[in-house]
């Protein structure tokens, strides 16, 4: 019987305590803000929309590799040795035409993994969060600064340059082969005098020098990208 009245008493007392709490909250000022009119100011490390400052980009593809969802697509074309692409803000020489650089912000997961490995700190996240679109492919941001014809044109003249170089190399190789042929003939006459192996050694050395030679001129052209091979973990502390 006493449990009966205890129940009633605890019901009434706890209900009234609860109502006292909510009544008190009638006079507490509201914590909510009216969004479109009043906007919350965001901290400066806010991570919302990706921004790409194109004239600093050297096309090193570090950010595209670091992105877990592959939402950054970059295509670069090597610049011709004579063309000068200018310097990035922190003094690195640019050597690659970035013909395509688009970020699919719809796929981006805002994890900021692309911002850290960038050597020239040209990709970072701004605090803009109102960028919704009606069509989904408007969300693919194209940052490349070259106009479409320039992109095609860059590609074309790079192929042309490539073809020239290949032809040049072929000619040089042919000349070298011809020269080597005479050498063999000359060596053939006085072969009995010298033992077998010494001949082979200079042979191989010759080919080495030759291949090194071709490698060197590749290097000159692509010096842009491996010289600036970024030390990949350069952290940007705030």
């Amino acid at each position, binding site marked *: 019987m006493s449990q009966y009245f205890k129940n009633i008493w605890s019901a009434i007392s*706890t209900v009234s*305590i609860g109502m006292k709490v909510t009544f008190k909250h009638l006079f507490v000022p509201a914590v909510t803000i009216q969004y479109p009119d009043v906007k919350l100011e965001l901290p400066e490390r806010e*991570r919302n929309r990706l921004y790409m400052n194109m004239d600093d980009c050297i096309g090193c593809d570090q950010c595209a590799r670091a992105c*877990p969802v592959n939402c950054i697509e970059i295509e670069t074309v090597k610049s011709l040795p004579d063309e000068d692409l200018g310097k990035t803000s922190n003094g690195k020489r640019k050597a690659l035409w970035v013909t395509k650089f688009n970020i699919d912000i719809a796929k981006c997961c805002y994890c900021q993994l692309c911002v850290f490995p960038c050597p020239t700190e040209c990709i970072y996240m701004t605090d803009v969060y109102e960028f919704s679109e009606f069509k989904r492919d408007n969300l693919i941001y194209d940052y490349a600064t070259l106009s479409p014809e320039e992109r095609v044109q860059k590609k074309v003249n790079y192929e042309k340059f490539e073809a020239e170089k290949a032809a040049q190399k072929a000619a040089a190789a042919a000349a070298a082969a011809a020269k080597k042929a005479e050498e063999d003939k000359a060596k053939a006459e006085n072969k009995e005098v010298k033992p077998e192996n010494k001949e082979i050694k200079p042979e191989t050395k010759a080919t080495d020098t030759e291949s090194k030679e071709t490698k060197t001129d590749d290097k000159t052209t692509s010096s842009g990208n491996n010289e600036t091979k970024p030390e990949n973990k350069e952290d940007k502390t705030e």
Partner: protein
Amino acid sequence: MAADIENKTTTNEKLKTEEMILNMGPQHPSTHGVLRLELQLEGELIVNVKPHIGYLHRCFEKHAEAMTYPQVIPYTDRMDYLASMYNEFGYAVAVEKLLDIKVPERVEYIRVIMGELQRIASHLVALGTYGADIGAVTPFLFCFRDREKILSLFEMTCGARLLYNYIWVGGVSHDLHHDFLRLTKDFVDYFRPKIKELNDLLSFNKIFIERTANVGILPLDTAINYGITGPMLRASGMKWDLRKDDPYSIYDKFDFDIPVGDGRMGTVGDSWDRYFVRVLEMEQSLRIIEQAIAQIPEGDVTSAIPKRIKPVVGQVYSRVEGPRGELGYFIISNGTVNPFRVKVRAPSFVNLAVINELCKGHLVADVITVLGSIDIVLGDVDR
């Protein structure tokens, strides 16, 4: 006279009542996500509960095999999206054990502070939605108002509010904001009386007690056999918390005690105990945060982050005490940059399996009460 009484009973047998299958389907206001519970009902009494999961399966384990070690971290965030800081913490501890690297002292303190703040935020969601499931909407709003303060603390340090990618393997992505410690201190002082207010409003409310005491009682031996961990296991009376029983990071530096369910409002291990253990745990987390703020040393946080993570061929199973239970990472590495296999022991996946045992013989309304007290997150269940 006896005859018609007699045949009345026979008509009763003929009056065969078959069970009603009620689908508490993937879209239901109180299944905490896309979970389908197939209830076999006898009138309103429950005969059998068959959970169907997999609606939110995004194959985290297949993704992890294609990513490099640092790239997996944004994916761990999306598993238990209400406690993503702790998922990262668990993953980072596992990979650091595999690489066997030592993390600077300051990073350990930052991780503990962030982890405990995330535990409070996750418990606030659990308690708030639990109140809303039982019918009291106001505590839900109060809990989310306090959780906003924690989210803005996270937003200040790493820029994101829900999925952070903040704790990296070997360190953290940003150092603490200069007035982060002060604001956390203010939050701790602000939040303590709010717990008391929540207790007045909901925990000791007679109707709430009536609805949750002696509902879904989980005896201790079935709990261990079902592999239940976290607040559910502690509510069933076992003092088992990985922060003390299998210490990782620097939890042994702080003194805090582990609340255990004692059947104050009904029997040990009922829904009320599971609810109240979470409330007490929030207070303990506040104590940890206070001590951590007091003792945090200076130092660089990104010094131990390895440039390229290529662990030696091997495997590790490491576990941490997430807000919902034991969060285990079993990582097998084959010496390359990508993990060979990452298996996650998700606490909600294991805790949900016991719902059939708990709900037998209760009413439809109790399924919601028991499901709310188990506190599952479907991202964690389906991975």
